[in-house]
């Protein structure tokens, strides 16, 4: 059964956003958008999270942090890049301290365009991510089953 789709917990990290997308991510939690309707909780802890929501492009300081957070999340997990900055660096792309989009550091599954991305767009992004999350889960479960079977035959 796929409970995963009904209970995605997100971890939000600001990898040098201008706050614009950040606060829209937060706005999703608040009464007007209330993503808890979809079982979404904003956990502050990578070990509990299923979805990593990143705003802002990465700079070199943030590189290891982003990677660390990503690694700390248990499988299956997806990454959503929210906003133009997280996708490509956006308006700051040419700044000396911006390396570019999040995909320079970790694999990104969903890009949410916009500057700032609207709460509705972010919700859409999460919904899109759920599909990918479910696929990954099935692959993982399949992998485990295959491993088991392999174990039995040997």
């Amino acid at each position, binding site marked *: *059964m*796929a*409970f*995963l789709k*009904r*209970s995605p917990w997100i971890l939000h990290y600001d990898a040098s956003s201008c706050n614009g997308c950040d606060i829209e991510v937060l706005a999703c939690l*608040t*009464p007007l958008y*209330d993503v*808890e*309707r*979809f*079982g979404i*909780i*904003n*956990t*502050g*802890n990578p*070990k*509990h999270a*299923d979805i990593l929501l990143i705003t802002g492009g990465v700079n070199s300081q943030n590189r290891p942090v982003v990677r660390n957070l990503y690694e*700390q999340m*248990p*499988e*299956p997990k997806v990454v959503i890049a929210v906003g133009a900055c997280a996708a490509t660096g956006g308006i700051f792309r040419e700044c000396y301290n911006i390396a570019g989009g999040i995909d320079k550091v970790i694999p990104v599954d969903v890009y949410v365009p916009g500057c700032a991305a609207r709460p509705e767009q972010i919700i859409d992004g999460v919904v899109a991510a759920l599909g990918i999350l479910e696929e990954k*889960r099935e692959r*993982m*479960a399949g992998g485990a089953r295959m491993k088991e079977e392999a174990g039995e035959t040997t």
Partner: protein
Amino acid sequence: MNRIMGAVIFLILAPLLGGLIAGIDRKITARMQGRVGPPILQPFYDVGKLFEKEKVVVTTAQNFYILAYLIFIALSGALFFAGGDLLLIIFAFTLAHVFLVLGAYAAHSPYSHIGAERELIQVMAYEPVIILTAVGFYMVTGSFYVVDMATTTIPVILYLPGVFLGLAAILTLKLRKSPFDISTSHHAHQEIVKGVTTEFSGSTLGQIEIAHWYENIFLLGIVYLFFAWNPVIGIIAVAVTYAAEIFVDNVTARVRWQAALKSGWLAAALGIANLAILSYMVYGGA
């Protein structure tokens, strides 16, 4: 035989009921905040999800303690619904919590460590009230056995209003609700991240959640005992108490540990005052 049935029914139904209550709780909370809130069954989805996730640990030992935590919480609840000795149940309950704390210690992570310390402060804060509750019941019903408390015809609440208030106060602590959710909180934004549960994930976190459901049912069971002479009133009282807890959760800020400890101990003092008057009535009158 009856008593074993009680235990079995608890072991099976408590997680279901506990999860449901958690779901209703979240829904009401959301409504109080002007939101729609999650589906009522959300807690089950969450736990189901957790069991689907990969197991991740800092150290393998940590999960062992959580299993022990779950087992002993379930055990103390089962003993309760089997009508056992309330003091013994309380001690089993404490033992369970010590296991939770040990799990957090074992992980050796700064945040779970601080969470563990705070959880211990919580235990220290609520323990006196819980013990006094048992003692209070004894003074009124003449027995430490839950089975006698549950079948009593005395309206216990009339004798123990202070103890009941004390218990209601520490219930906030136990349900991990504001203002006393110091060691870990369902609400994400806490200075100590997720406190005790920081390093637990996947099915282990699910176990903690289930243990919490067991625990809540057990605690509500204690609340019920105050009104046990009339089951209807009892169930209403439990609902009202829980609703009051949700309400308080929604209208208060989280306090520091100092205040949590002080409140817990003051709640106990209230209970003591109640019992002192009662004991004066018993011995003074005799």
